[in-house]
């Protein structure tokens, strides 16, 4: 049986979730060389209201491209946390932006104030999504820090490279401080059951 990892990045429109999805997929697919498929909720929702992007990664070709039961859920606002935590697997990881998410339904969630970090430390609230990407790279083993940095640099506008690199670092640092939780097996450590 092949390995499959389902991620949903959720929040409200304008938080940059779709871009996050693209960067994460690019990091995993192009820079880390795995199979990846990225989908999103589209249309009016992208301009206000709730928004989500999904990334599925695998070591083999991906059949169903949308997230099924989640290995990782990022909730950037309270509503998306409430809406989607039920889709999380038992050993799935929940990461919330504690700037906006006050009630967390499960104990072992990572609470990191991405938006506050972006606003206060980096003076640019818009990079909260990049801060969150940094945290994901640190808290999971699905993407290497090197790949995520390369993918961020390739996608962000010229002239904002330093800001975004700082944002990634800030996210990683914040993740280090966040409480440790169970992390799924690393891809590289997996025993291929098919062989």
């Amino acid at each position: 049986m092949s390995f499959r990892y389902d991620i949903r990045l959720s929040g409200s429109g304008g938080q940059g979730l779709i871009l996050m999805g693209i960067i994460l997929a690019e990091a995993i697919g192009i820079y880390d060389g795995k199979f990846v498929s990225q989908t999103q909720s589209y249309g009016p929702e992208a301009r206000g209201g709730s928004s989500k992007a999904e990334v599925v990664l695998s070591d083999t070709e991906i059949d169903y491209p949308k997230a099924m039961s989640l290995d990782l859920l990022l909730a950037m606002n309270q509503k998306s946390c409430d809406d989607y935590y039920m889709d999380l697997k038992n050993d799935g990881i929940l990461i919330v932006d504690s700037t906006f998410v006050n009630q967390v339904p499960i104990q072992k969630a990572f609470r990191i104030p991405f938006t506050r970090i972006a606003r206060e430390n980096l003076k640019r609230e818009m990079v909260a999504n990049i801060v969150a990407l940094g945290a994901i790279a640190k808290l999971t083993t699905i993407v290497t820090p090197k790949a995520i940095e390369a993918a961020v640099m390739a996608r962000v506008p010229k002239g904002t490279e330093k800001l975004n690199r700082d944002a990634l670092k800030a996210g990683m640092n914040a993740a280090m401080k966040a409480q440790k939780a169970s992390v799924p097996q690393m891809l590289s450590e997996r025993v291929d059951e098919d062989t």
Partner: protein
Amino acid sequence: MKKKTKKELLLQGNEAIVEGALRAGCRFFAGYPITPATEISELLSVRLPQVDGTFIQMEDEIASMGAIIGASLAGAKSMTATSGPGFSLMQENLGYAVIAEVPCVIVDAMRGGPSTGLPTFPSQSDVMQARWGTHGDHPIIVLCPSTVRECYDITIRAFNMAEKFRTPVIILVDEVVAHMREKISIDEDEDIEIFNRVKPTVPPEWYIPYEDTPRGVPAMANFGDGYRYHVTGLTHDIRGFPTSRPDEIDPFIRRLFRKISQHFAELHMGEFFETDDAEITIIAYGCVARSAKRAARDARERGLKVGALKLNTIWPFMRTPVEKVLQTSKIIIVPEMNMGQISREVKRVNKTDAKVFTINKVDGTIITPEEILRKIKEVR
């Protein structure tokens, strides 16, 4: 430093269609903005002028379809992209492209309908519009990708078929495939077959623009090549002039059908997934084909002999492959995001004892593997 020709890219389905079109030699695009096909316009407005092609945003889809036919007659490989409502507007001129035998490619990124319907949600409800949308008897080629890679490959194939058979070719994508991003590698040096229309080699005075040939496809001169001929939407004789003679009309219409029907084997594209021993086979296309494959995998894990047949060619209907699974499987399930457009065809060609079940979803969401599994358990 030697330039690397092989690129690994994370592309949307729509973006892969653009890459495929450019690779196939598309040099003219006319379109009108509509979700979820807009990315194709946007990207081609960047890319086409770089390769001396032309991008134009017309006043509506009727005009877009007219412009690509005109451009094709003047020698350019041309394309337009739209969604349901715009596709409806194109139908009149689509028929023109069929009868005047003008190669061109139309992408329809399907959305829920009727009318404005569900602009940003997936659907597969234009299957019959693609087949019978334009009036009159006509054959049509309709292709349907289900992965980003297939978006690229099928677009190239669509242009090849259009040029080879002198006919419009429709690519049906659904919102999921159009907007989904996946990794694909594109190698500029890769040896991909690109077909260019066959031009006449006879002197202009010998040229018969709509001559019957064994292949059924006459040679096509471009405007300006020195072969002056008449192109019309009226039923015409072999010289292209309007005719109302029954003895000229009949062979002409039959040739239009024959040029497609005698090449079914070449036109049919699809994939059998573990169907050899399957007791249950899921027949699906577009994004649902992926759910089908997943469901088949999951079912096999549970010890059920389930296979899947993916249709990449929607029209002409893949009768032979479908008949093959009808013979080997006792149960056929056809999940579609419409009220049953392809399942009707499957039932139509079913001459066996196999039972055909459908899953019809029209709520703007994709059919999930679980839903297919549930149906398998229900009908088994």
